[in-house]
């Protein structure tokens, strides 16, 4: 057994340890390198930037906890952007487990112990304002503060349940749900997850079907996002934005080039780019998890490349390439 062979047969647990170290140490010594947003992510950002309280978007949590590390920051970033601009948001989910991911995202953005959170106003709490017949966003906020409510210091804004957000949740056969929503959202979701009838909500009064929706942001860990194109975009021309895991991202560049989606956040990098855009434009004082994660990723990528190169040197220097060969091989 020569040295190369010994090297290649090293217990893999040593390599496990190496990658573990490479992913932990940078947390304590951040490099703080800048990330430049790509055109793919700017496409989404600019689209949402062009919307306001009169428009509405859908943020769909089409992933499961397994890929949450990548997908969750994307959805949170899109939700934050919408909340900050007072754009009404419908929140849906393609998978049952995604509904809970959505709940976690909303509670993260409305967590009062965090900087720059949004003060959540529950449906029942502003019933009196609705009874007065005030439905426009500015009027609601005015009436709400007139009732003696003041925005806490750390908070960035209010989120009125039923006006700024409607949490619709999961339904099975979601591709059919998308089709059904093209004619009426309430036909698919008569109520939100806590049982409030959709028809009573101001958000629904202005945005009754997908025709009244200006963007659907789908964050997916698999091919669920393509359903939004097949059943939403191709049916009524609904604009779509993708947030996909890195594993799927390269496959979906075709949809950007064909104009079927307005943009794509690919993996943690895509989420980090969106976080950069939010911070640069004053929607957030700090970065989110994705940006910090990308900083850590630097070293890990270098380590992987180093391992590939080293492994190949050992392989060829050790003469292993001569041992197994098939005629049929390319």
């Amino acid at each position, binding site marked *: 057994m020569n040295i190369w062979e010994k090297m290649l047969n090293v217990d893999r647990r040593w390599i496990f340890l190496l990658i573990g170290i490479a992913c932990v140490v940078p947390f304590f010594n951040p490099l703080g390198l800048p990330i430049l947003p790509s055109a793919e992510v700017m496409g989404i950002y600019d689209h949402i930037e062009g919307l306001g309280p009169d428009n509405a978007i859908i943020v769909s949590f089409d992933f499961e906890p397994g890929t949450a590390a990548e997908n969750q920051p994307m959805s949170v970033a899109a939700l934050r952007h919408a909340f900050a601009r007072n754009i009404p948001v419908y929140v849906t989910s393609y998978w049952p487990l995604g509904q809970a991911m959505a709940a976690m995202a909303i509670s993260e953005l409305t967590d009062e112990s965090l900087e720059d959170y949004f003060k959540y106003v529950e449906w029942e709490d502003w019933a009196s304002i609705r009874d007065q017949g005030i439905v426009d966003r500015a009027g609601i906020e005015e009436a709400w503060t007139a009732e003696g409510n003041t925005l806490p210091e750390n908070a960035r804004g209010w989120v009125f349940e039923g006006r700024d957000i409607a949490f619709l949740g999961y339904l099975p056969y979601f591709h059919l749900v998308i089709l059904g929503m093209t004619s009426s959202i309430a036909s698919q979701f008569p109520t939100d997850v806590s049982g409030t009838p959709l028809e009573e909500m101001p958000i629904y*009064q202005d945005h009754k079907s997908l*025709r009244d929706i200006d963007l659907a942001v789908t964050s997916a860990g698999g091919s669920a996002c393509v359903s939004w194109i097949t059943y939403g975009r191709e049916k009524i021309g609904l604009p779509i934005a993708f947030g996909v895991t890195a594993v799927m991202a390269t496959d979906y560049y075709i949809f950007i080039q064909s104009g079927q989606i307005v943009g794509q956040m690919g993996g943690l990098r895509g989420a980090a780019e969106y976080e950069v855009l939010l911070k640069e434009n004053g929607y957030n004082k700090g970065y989110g998890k994705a940006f910090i994660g990308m900083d850590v990723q630097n070293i890990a990528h270098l380590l992987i490349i180093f391992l590939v190169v080293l492994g190949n040197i050992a392989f060829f220097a050790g003469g292993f390439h001569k041992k*197994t060969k098939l*005629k049929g091989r390319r």
Partner: protein
Amino acid sequence: MLRKVPALLLALLLATGLAWAQAEEPPPTEPADTGEAAETAEEAVVMEEVAEIELSALSAAVGDGMISPGGIVVSDWPNDAGDALLISFEPGSEIGNDNFAGYAIYRRTQGEEELVLVGTMETDEGTSFIDGYDPDFIVEPGVQYEYQVAAVYLSGSEVASDLVTAQVTAEGQLFHTGKVRVLVGCVLFLGLILFYFHAAQRGVEMYLRPIAGIEAIDEAIGRATEMGKPILYVPGLGAISDVATIASITILGRVAKKVAEYGTPLLVPNRDPIVYTIVEETVKQAYMEAGRPDAFDKDSVFFLTQSQFAFVAGVNGIMMREKPATNFYLGLFWAESLILAETGSLSGAIQIAGTDAVTQLPFFITTCDYTLIGEELYAASAYLGREPKQLGSIKGQDACKGIIMAVITLGLLLALTDIITGTETLDWLKNVITMPIVD
């Protein structure tokens, strides 16, 4: 004759395409961008309040000299289920007025008293409106409606037109003219697949190019026999409904037959219980066909576990203990592909992989000796299985790919022509192919 069919169909496609490009009227443009959420809430309030007031009183309240919108023309919105009408009208004196806030569209069913506000429009949305998209005020097919359009001013006052009886009632169409290209695509595809099914069943010889991986399969079996070591065959982690699993089982049948002839031991671990039963049948059958049913070892095909990572751990254990000379990974794989192939490569086995899971292919290509890429897996199974309908299906798909290739080549040539001559021939081709975004 058979060879000419795709060419003929292509000619047909182009000819029809050309015909539409000439004949088709431009589809009606949607007057208001319905994707844009229409009314600001503020105006909606104003208008709803206004709607409650008696209309005649309203009209009277507006000063003289104001010309109301008029000339309402109601036409049927095409390609729908009879649930939308297009209302177009001519503007009145509100144009250019700084206080003009938008239009309000009122409707009532003929014979009823009350007018209902069915929609509002902003100043920049033109003078036509699609009625019926609001799920609260649906348009019923065949019902006679009456319409009124009012110009709304910032003060809340409205100048309303006369009540006009709709010239038409909404009607559903029997064919969606915007979907002609999709129809042609579907019919072509369907036609070609059925044609080749039929041809294959009649026993027409069909050429399928040799797939290098198949050679490698035979060679790898030979290698294991020489070394007297077992062969490991993993039919993927997919269910029976996955195309890759079906293809893999066909290939397994062929491998098992060879293995039976040579008397090499075979190991087939399974993850899906249903796949397991079918795989066992297939292997037994193969030993029978090879004339050695007695050589079939019942324990060679077995069910491991349904859990993804536990399955991998199990297979890895087998690789380290039994040291198979050849590993086959054919079928549907997910993230575990990497772990399997790495362990196999360390145990020194020859590895042949094949899957249609695109994201896993790079790992197989870099770790295995031979990899069947995507469709090659299906083709290999058709090639080995020689089942006429499978062959026919591959042929039919190839014919469709041929059409796609022809159109792309044509596009490439036209694009080059455009650069050289400065013409716009590519746009012409695009017009033939491009479908409207909205159905």
